[in-house]
């Protein structure tokens, strides 16, 4: 009986029934409020992570639901941060899920005026060929005064302070093997 049902849920009637003069509490509560719970409770999984901003290395908990991130907050178990985060760390959710993130590779032709979206594979191949070309053209086996240097000064790298150790390791390993020595990062700056 829809109408009766509706009436029975009418807070005023409950007020009268319970003799609740002010209706400050339960009688005023809606079904939604009744069911309310933290979204972390419904997350599929929690992944342990580290804040990507500064070098304090505060612990973070990443809550994932349906392969999407629903919340990122401090990890109370971390002896460094005990669950605290600074404003940047607290904004990590926006950093990793923000609509500012570009999701396709962009390419600007020489003398071009616009970016063009290009396939990842093509771009990787292109970069590899450019590296080879530049390396071969600028290879320096010996210095003018005859010292062995086997290197190229034609290619340089900047960056690493925000990368993982494993990533820096592969770069240093690869670039050293390629004879690229101008490898630098923010630590110098």
């Amino acid at each position, binding site marked *: 009986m829809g109408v009766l049902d509706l009436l029975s849920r009418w807070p005023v009637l409950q007020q009268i029934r319970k003799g609740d003069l002010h209706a400050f509490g339960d009688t005023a509560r809606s079904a939604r409020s009744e069911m309310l*719970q933290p979204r972390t409770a419904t997350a599929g999984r929690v992944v342990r992570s580290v804040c990507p901003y500064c070098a304090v290395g505060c612990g973070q908990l990443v809550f994932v639901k349906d392969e999407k991130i629903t919340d990122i907050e401090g990890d109370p178990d971390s002896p460094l941060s005990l669950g605290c985060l600074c404003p940047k760390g607290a904004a990590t959710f926006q950093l990793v899920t923000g609509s500012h993130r570009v999701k396709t590779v962009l390419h600007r032709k020489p003398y071009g005026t616009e970016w063009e979206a290009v396939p990842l594979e093509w771009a990787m191949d292109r970069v590899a060929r450019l590296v080879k070309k530049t390396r071969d053209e600028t290879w320096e086996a010996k210095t003018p005064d005859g010292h062995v240097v086997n290197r190229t000064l034609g290619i340089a790298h900047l960056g690493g302070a925000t990368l993982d150790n494993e990533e820096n390791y592969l770069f240093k390993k690869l670039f050293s093997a390629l004879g690229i020595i101008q490898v630098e990062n923010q630590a110098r700056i």
Partner: protein
Amino acid sequence: MAVGFFTDTTICIGCKACEVACKQWNQLPDDGLLFTGMSYDNTASLGASTWRHVSFIERPVPLTGQETGLGDFSWLLMSDVCKHCQRAGCLEACPTGAILRTEFDSVYVQPDICNGCGYCVVSCPFGVIDRREDDGRAWKCTLCYDRLKGGLEPACAKACPTDSIQFGDLDELQDRARDRLERLHRHGMAEAYLYGADAAGQPGTEGLNAFFLLVDRPEVYNLPSDPVAPAKKAAPAWTSMAFAVLGMAAAAVGAVLSARGGGD
């Protein structure tokens, strides 16, 4: 059981982690990218989309216990929030029952009920709750009602790096606050005091569930010195209305009778 915040402004470093942690958890929008020129405060005030707000007060007055080569100068930092008053103006004003007092003794606005009548906005003696025109509903700090239901502490208190914002059982917080105050007084900081810690300290609201430790007058932090939940003073208004309407009735009767009389 009653829970709340104790915000100790003497250890606040004004990092605004609370503001962002709150926005992140509640997924609130920014409320304007405006440079205000008010020290480092570009949020200006609490509002419908800003439930934690950090104030920055540059004072030409020294802070007890601190010495600086600048001479008479100090920088007061304070994270403000909804006070979740014992006598809450907004709660008592809300005609729809959208605002209620939760099982945690906090004051919560139900977004599915609020119809945006705007009466709570004028009834809050702290100017906390606000209606966002483009949304049409009234919003304010929920004390992370959803988190509390899940046994979690509110986002701002959790994030606060220096524990300037402390969350917990109200009685326990009050004890902690008194100890802290006592300690500060012992160290010569006579100006320190608790704001709204209990009914005695703030009869107008009968105490705040979110109270503060301050070192200058409330107005300096944009807080009222003696806020009162409007409904506490409703009686005289109703009484004088009663007299007035009776007067009106009398006038009506009088007008009719006199005219009839005159008609004879």
